[in-house]
């Protein structure tokens, strides 16, 4: 693969310490975007609930909101600095897209898609093509990514869209239909996966960056918008390619490398999708907090004072914090544990959207009719519930990602048993104050060689908690919870090691093990983050996370331990209206 090599060498020294994670590129754009979104959310603005709700109702595309994001300069953060953009830290893009998703998922999916469309070129394209694409994106070009076909979704090797070398080697001819693709009708450019060897196979496909503006309407036939359950305003459609001639330089990387490139690109985009789920989770919790503090029972008690409602809110808060811990560590791992992304991205994409779907469903339960009716003004809760469903389906469903984990069970269980891990990378990925090394796409690998350092590093992290408990820098309660997590993780890895199956016959119970693996990863991520925290981050949030993870792992958890969830509920209910506590609070200075 002719991967571009933007950085001559990945930083290998100990992660440089800085007091706060100010992006290397200069000032942090996130608070500025949050401020801008607030301004645009006033009545009549393109980000107002009223405007977005009305568009959703008539399945209208949120063009004005997308334009406002263009004006803000968001597309620059989809383009790596070496190709002329502002992207030098993937956690910044994640926080930016999370901020947009907190307001509206349709807009986030429509705008953020350009990043998904471009990433194959960033990791495998020729440097001059990447620079050209970076310029186009800065000028406002929309880029889409077309993998799926009408009869082939998850199974990339089944694709029928074909590209043949044109006579005399003057480019390629693309024929066939891509369908159920975000933005393909609106897009200026489309990354297309096409079969280049009639026999197919993992070396039988190639990726092309197709410039639609160069093509005529006889060559391209856009298919009608597909009505969808959520993100109703988005351009979900398809495209027929009729013997479309594309120039030689449209090929991304080498011919035959399409599947390898896209699998590696998915390591980044699956991780990026987490931003949308976290934003939706923030939104759901802030709506729930507002409702429960304003609504009252018949005798005038605020609903938020009802013990079972508080408990539900606390559990949802803990769920979001676990999801956030996973997302933060995963996105930092893009830089710090790049070679492990086959595991990390699968965990992130399987776990975070599913976790947020769950917490939304739980909250809907406690909100009762309010959540589904227009009682919240513009049906925001119901909209986000519908909108969020897609996150667990596109870019590899939760099941597909669990399958990817199961394929790596043998390696993961061996690595856990021997404690194999990249200590330096783990330290950098889980210390929010550490400067991230530049991302090196050459380090991406189809299979993680080390396994997963986040999980393999759990036993040592638990030992550390025991040490802290001796000096009372950690509570005995935390030490007990951490110890139980370690034992559950030990047992899980023994079960994972015992899973054996012939190809394409993954046993059902392996998916349950994969779910438990995700929980162990999430809890381990939270523990590592807490151990490397810079400020007096309260221990209670970590205990709440561990209580939730242990409960979901099926471990018995007592009532006293569950009381930590009430502390999280109090944190949520006492937060500034419209805001939700986050592990990033102390870093962003705002809890929006």
């Amino acid at each position, binding site marked *: 693969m002719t991967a571009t090599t933007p950085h001559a060498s990945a930083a290998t020294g100990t992660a440089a310490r800085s007091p706060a994670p100010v992006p290397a590129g200069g000032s942090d754009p996130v608070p500025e975007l949050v401020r801008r979104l607030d301004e645009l959310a006033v009545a009549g603005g393109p980000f107002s609930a009223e405007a977005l709700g009305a568009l959703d109702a008539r399945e209208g595309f949120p063009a004005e909101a997308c334009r406002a994001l263009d004006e803000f300069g968001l597309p620059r953060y989809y383009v790596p600095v070496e190709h002329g953009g502002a992207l030098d830290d993937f956690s910044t893009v994640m926080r930016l897209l999370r901020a947009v998703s907190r307001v509206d998922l349709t807009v986030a999916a429509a705008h953020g898609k350009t990043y998904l469309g471009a990433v194959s070129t960033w990791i495998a394209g020729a440097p001059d093509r990447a620079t050209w694409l970076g310029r186009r994106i800065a000028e406002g070009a929309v880029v889409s990514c077309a993998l799926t076909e009408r009869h082939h979704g998850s199974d990339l*090797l089944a694709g029928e869209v074909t590209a043949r070398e044109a006579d005399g080697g003057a480019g390629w001819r693309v024929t066939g239909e891509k369908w159920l693709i975000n933005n393909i009708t609106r897009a200026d450019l489309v990354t297309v996966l096409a079969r280049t060897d009639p026999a197919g196979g993992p070396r039988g496909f190639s990726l092309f960056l197709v410039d639609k503006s160069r093509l005529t309407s006889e060559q391209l036939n856009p298919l009608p918008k597909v009505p969808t359950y959520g993100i109703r305003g988005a351009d979900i459609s398809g495209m027929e390619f009729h013997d479309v001639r594309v120039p030689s330089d449209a090929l991304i990387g080498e011919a035959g490398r399409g599947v*390898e490139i896209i699998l590696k690109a998915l390591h980044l985009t699956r991780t990026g999708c987490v931003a949308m789920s976290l934003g939706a989770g923030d939104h759901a919790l802030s709506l729930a907090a507002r409702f429960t503090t304003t609504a009252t029972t018949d005798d005038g008690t605020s609903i938020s004072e009802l013990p079972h409602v508080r408990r539900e809110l606390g559990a949802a808060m803990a769920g979001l914090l676990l999801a956030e811990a996973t997302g933060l560590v995963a996105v930092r791992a893009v830089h710090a544990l790049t070679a492990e992304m086959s595991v990390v991205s699968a965990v992130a994409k399987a776990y975070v959207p599913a976790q947020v779907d769950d917490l939304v469903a739980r909250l809907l339960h406690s909100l009762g009719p309010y959540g589904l009716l227009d009682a919240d003004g513009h049906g925001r809760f119901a909209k986000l519930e519908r909108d969020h469903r897609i996150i667990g389906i596109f870019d590899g469903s939760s099941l597909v990602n669990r399958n*990817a984990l199961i394929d790596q069970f*043998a*390696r993961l269980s061996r690595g856990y048993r021997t404690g194999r891990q990249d200590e330096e990378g783990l330290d950098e990925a889980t210390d929010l104050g550490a400067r991230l090394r530049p991302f090196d796409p050459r380090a991406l690998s*189809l299979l993680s060689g080390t396994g997963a350092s986040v999980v393999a590093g759990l036993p040592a992290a638990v030992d550390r908690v025991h040490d802290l408990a001796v000096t009372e820098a950690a509570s005995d309660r935390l030490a007990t919870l951490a110890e139980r997590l370690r034992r559950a993780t030990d047992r899980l890895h023994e079960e994972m090691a015992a899973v054996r199956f*012939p190809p394409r016959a993954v046993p059902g119970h392996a998916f349950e093990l994969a779910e438990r693996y995700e929980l162990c990863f999430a809890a381990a991520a939270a523990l590592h983050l807490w151990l490397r925290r810079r400020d007096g981050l309260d221990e209670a949030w970590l205990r709440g996370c561990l209580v939730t993870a242990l409960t979901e792992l099926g471990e018995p958890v007592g009532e006293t331990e569950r009381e930590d969830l009430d502390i999280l509920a109090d944190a949520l209910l006492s937060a500034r209206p419209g805001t939700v506590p986050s592990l990033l609070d102390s870093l962003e200075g705002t809890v929006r």
Partner: protein
Amino acid sequence: MPESDVEIHSAQSLVRWLTECVAMHLARPADTIDASVPLSDYGLDSVYALSVIAELEDHLDVSLDPAIMWDNPTIDALSKALAEELALNG
């Protein structure tokens, strides 16, 4: 993972090890696996096939690019490529 006492770095011994490994994954006798037939014919055509490389890496304690499996789709071709790779690294 099949255990093997033989010195594994020759193409021939790699063929033996890989055949056993693949046979175990497919739950069928090793003598029914033809080393000159593409592994995809046995259903080993996806990322799943890469786990064979993972086992080999752990067994030999070396680091390989898993895609070597895709560039060398039969046990014979793979063994030859691996033997060359190991000789270079070794």
